[in-house]
């Protein structure tokens, strides 16, 4: 019974994930695209929970669906009508090539998965209940992956400085604008 329930939740989350993904790509209004991406991130968080990655799921909702998407929606609001992105434009050949390239990527990944199926992808290893809990993730982060942890902080600092530099207006620009 519990197994059946997990399958139902998996189907709902996976369906929502793919549906909102298609919505993000196909909307002409970036506001709706960003809202769909929030739904996409939330359903991905459910899949993360099913894979016993509790801390990553929580971080996904807080950092991604919370902070990053709010930033996105602010920029969409700032741009207003200019942000609208109609489908028109672009040579038809280029569009066809994009579809073919994306389909080729997908086929490649599925073929690789099909080849690996049965050997590697069944019988997952047994993990304890605390697998993926903040305590365990934090311990691994601060012991084995301390360098990655520190470098992440530098990357974020550099990005923050870059954002400020890009966002600052120079007076000369203001005159021409």
């Amino acid at each position, binding site marked *: 019974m519990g197994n059946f329930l997990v399958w139902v939740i998996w189907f709902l989350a996976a369906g929502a994930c793919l549906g909102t993904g298609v919505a993000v790509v196909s909307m002409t209004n970036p506001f709706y695209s960003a809202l769909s991406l929030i739904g996409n991130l939330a359903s991905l968080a459910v899949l993360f929970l099913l*894979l016993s990655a509790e801390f990553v799921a929580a971080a996904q909702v807080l950092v991604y669906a919370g902070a*990053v998407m709010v930033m*996105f929606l602010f920029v969409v609001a700032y741009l207003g009508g200019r942000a609208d992105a109609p489908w028109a434009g672009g040579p038809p050949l280029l569009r066809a090539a994009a579809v073919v*390239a994306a389909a080729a990527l997908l086929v490649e990944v599925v073929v690789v998965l099909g080849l690996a199926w049965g050997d590697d992808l069944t019988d997952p290893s047994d*993990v304890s209940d605390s697998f993926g809990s903040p305590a365990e993730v934090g311990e691994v982060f601060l012991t084995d992956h301390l360098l990655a942890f520190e470098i992440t902080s530098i990357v974020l600092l550099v990005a923050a400085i870059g*954002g400020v530099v890009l966002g600052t207006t120079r007076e000369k620009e203001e005159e021409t604008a």
Partner: protein
Amino acid sequence: MDGPDVGWYLIVAAILFGIGALGVMLRRSPLIVLLSLEIMLNAANLTLIAFARQHGDLDGQIFALAVMAVAAAEVAIGLGLIVAMARRRMLLDVDQASALRG
């Protein structure tokens, strides 16, 4: 492990990655290209976490968290660029923004 095998998660991640790649190549608005990039990064994250569960090794989850931090940095810079483009009255179209003139 209850429910579907790890392979099913990988298939969802593959399709999601394909959708994101399609968006990056097909759409011309820089905002939507950025959103599609996020989808691709998240598909990769799902793969990392699925394999972390498969092998019972937390390193994959650590990698996923690092990817999230890099994605946040990328969005900050990308949105900064879009706002700078909008301020210069440039057309918000990735095909038009082909010159690196300052």
